[in-house]
């Protein structure tokens, strides 16, 4: 007696599920994770990867089986069975994907909310008034409280601020508390930071693959990107939005270092006058 088809299908399904789970969990396609929420993004990716592998393998297997098993033999001029549909089956393969997609959607929403992506547009006071910002030139008086456009902002309370200016074709970093400007971003390990991004010319995008964070830097729309770097090292900052001929060369470095080294670096770069001069003379 042949083995019933339903048993074979069940076994194949179990194998498929195991294979896709194994692939999703064990094949790592992402670069190292170096920020607090990067590993939650990776967890989401693993779920999506598992589901994707299972779906692709399943459909490919069905396609290949159909092509081999149901190929037309020479001399066979008959038609296949006149099956025009199967309502319960169609309802089944409408409902199952819909449920899976809703679950994945809620899960990814949850992650995004945790990252701070659901923070509303706000009137930040921590952002200094924009001196050379273009919006101010359109007639209405410059608002001392600049509207901050919704970026990802997870920094609660005292985040370390860095102003990031994007221009063709470089990122420039200004440390407002120490009042110096540099071409290389240094960040303290494990401490929340708040990047205040603005663009001088066209749209750029600030992307650090290891942080899993990307934020468009749009002229006229200062944006905040808050996160916590949690792994020491040097990572690339990459411009991800086409910004002109040298777009591919618009890269910079971010150095994540422990508190001690970070303080040293800050001290080394802080202009000497600031430490000794009285408050009033800081007009730079």
């Amino acid at each position: 007696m042949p083995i019933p088809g339903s048993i074979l299908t069940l076994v194949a399904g179990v194998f498929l599920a195991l294979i896709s789970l194994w692939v999703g969990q064990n094949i790592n396609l992402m670069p190292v994770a170096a920020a607090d929420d990067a590993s939650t993004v990776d967890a989401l990716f693993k779920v999506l990867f598992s589901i994707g592998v299972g779906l692709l393998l399943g459909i490919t297997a069905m396609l290949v089986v159909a092509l081999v098993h149901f190929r037309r033999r020479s001399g066979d001029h008959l038609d296949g069975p006149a099956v025009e549909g199967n309502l319960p089956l169609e309802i089944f393969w409408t409902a199952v994907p819909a449920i899976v997609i809703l679950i994945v959607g809620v899960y990814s929403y949850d992650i995004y909310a945790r990252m701070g992506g659901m923070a509303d547009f706000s009137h930040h006071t921590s952002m200094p008034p924009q001196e050379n910002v273009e919006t101010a030139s359109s007639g209405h008086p410059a608002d001392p409280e600049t509207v901050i456009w919704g970026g990802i902002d997870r920094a609660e309370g005292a985040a370390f601020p860095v102003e990031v200016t994007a221009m063709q074709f470089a990122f420039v970093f200004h440390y407002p508390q120490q009042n110096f400007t540099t071409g290389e971003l240094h960040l303290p390990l494990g401490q929340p930071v708040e990047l205040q991004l603005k663009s001088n010319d066209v749209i750029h995008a600030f992307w650090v693959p290891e942080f899993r964070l990307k934020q468009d830097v749009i002229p006229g729309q200062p944006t905040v990107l808050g996160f916590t770097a949690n792994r020491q090292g040097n990572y690339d900052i990459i411009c991800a939005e086409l910004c002109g001929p040298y777009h591919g060369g618009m890269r910079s470095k971010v150095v994540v270092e422990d508190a001690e080294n970070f303080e040293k670096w800050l001290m080394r770069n802080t202009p000497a006058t600031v430490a000794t001069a009285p408050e009033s003379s800081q007009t730079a």
Partner: protein
Amino acid sequence: MTTNALPASPHPVEVQHHTPWHEYFGFSLDHKVIGIQYLVTGFFFYLVGGALAGMIRVELVTPLSDFMARDTYNQVLTLHGTIMIFLWIVPVVNGAFGNYLVPFYVGARDMAFPRLNAVAFWMLPPAGFLLMSSYFVGGAAQSGWTAYPPLSITTPAVGQVVWIISVLLLGGSSIFGAVNFIATILKLRQPGLDLFQLPMFCWAMLGTSVLVVLATPVLAGALILLSMDIVAGTGFFNPALGGNAVVYQHLFWFYSHPAVYIMVLPAFGLVSEILPIHARKPLFGYRSMIYSILGIVFLGLIVWAHHMFTSGTPPWMRLFFTIATAIIAVPTGIKFFNWLATLWQGKLALNSALLFCCGFIFNFVFGGITGVALAQVPFDVHVHDTYFVVAHFHYIVFGGTVFVIFAAIYHWFPKISGRLLNEHLGRLHCLLSFIGFNVCFFPQHWLGLNGMPRRVAEYDPQFQLINQISSVGALILAISTLPFLVNVFLSMWKGVPAGDNPWRACTAEWLTSSPPPVENWLHEAPLVTEPYDYGSTEDAMSVTTVRGRDLWSAGR
């Protein structure tokens, strides 16, 4: 299949079977001639766009920008995207196959507005040559096919304005075509032919045309405002003058996301025509296929902001667009399950048309899976504007639609020319395309995940090997075109005569001569109310093995 009996004509009419060659270069009003004009023109631009893609892949063989100047590279990628979308895929799946097939399927002798149809086609060549000539006159546009301001305002104006004019022309052509399809499908149906008896391709064209009519004017408006920003110094999208750059993105994607469905829905329709014939089974789930097309049309209009998750969009918008985008996978999934069910238990003829369709199913499912992943904001934030996205949309528009275009050419070439294409060359073409395509684009997912942004002429040296593999795939893809071209030219003159209906198909274009006469049928148009009437019931008998006793003992 129900066809009305063809009455013997009392006066045999002299019918021109062969359209004179010069007709194809003129202002013909015949929907079949216009369809072929679209197809050949589109294929010419496919070769141009493919050559541009080749230049991009050559530049990316090394991490340095050493093959062409950086601004030339940006012109090349802008032209590649614009030509492939607006001059190859949209005109071919809509203009070529839509014009050729829709009148047959509704039982009409031509489109509703033949003159508008010809005008729509003849807007295409000038727009295309204008676009290409801009490269030689001061440089083409170099802000990508998306033309985001302020970049598009600051790059050289002539190229950008020429780009806008040609896209406006192409958009106009597309709208003219869509109006024509809607009118033809709704108003030119043969008496007695119900909407729910139409072949699926008509429904796909109806849905696509609704999208074209609703979305294309928005793109036109956005581009006109953009051109005023460039030429007249207005400040709609220029932040330096108080404008808002993100508004352009909303307007642009309000068209350009539906544009994806304008490119894939007709392809879905074509697959629904091709598969049942070569599987010898009815199309599975006819009604659910229609409802899923309508669902895709509706959802396709409300997902555009998923292209802007990193652009500072409000949080509620991100939530809404994530859910809406992911939900599109449901109606799309229904279509793929239905096609698999159509193949299942069929009698599959493993010819080029069917194999290209199967390649399409694999590629599109792959692209759909990465699409659902991209809809999830936290993941999208990481891979937005990277090679992951490049890989994703090439799996959709190349692996999806272009594979279907080739399937459709293998399927309808016998009708168009009266001769069969060579199957050996066809299957070689299919194999090379499938391998080349996947070698080219599969590795790009990894590049994007690991930090290679799109639209760059130079990149981190750690990505060199994978980029070289991708370029080898592009080379295989380029080579795959050769057997196709040889096949078409050989078969056009020396191919095996096809006869009227080589695939034993039920739809109306096969119920006439190959090539069809000028007004499609010599006599009255056949009334095809069951376009997928394939498949035998239990008591069907093979003509070759049946014996007389079987016939009279069958109990009927």
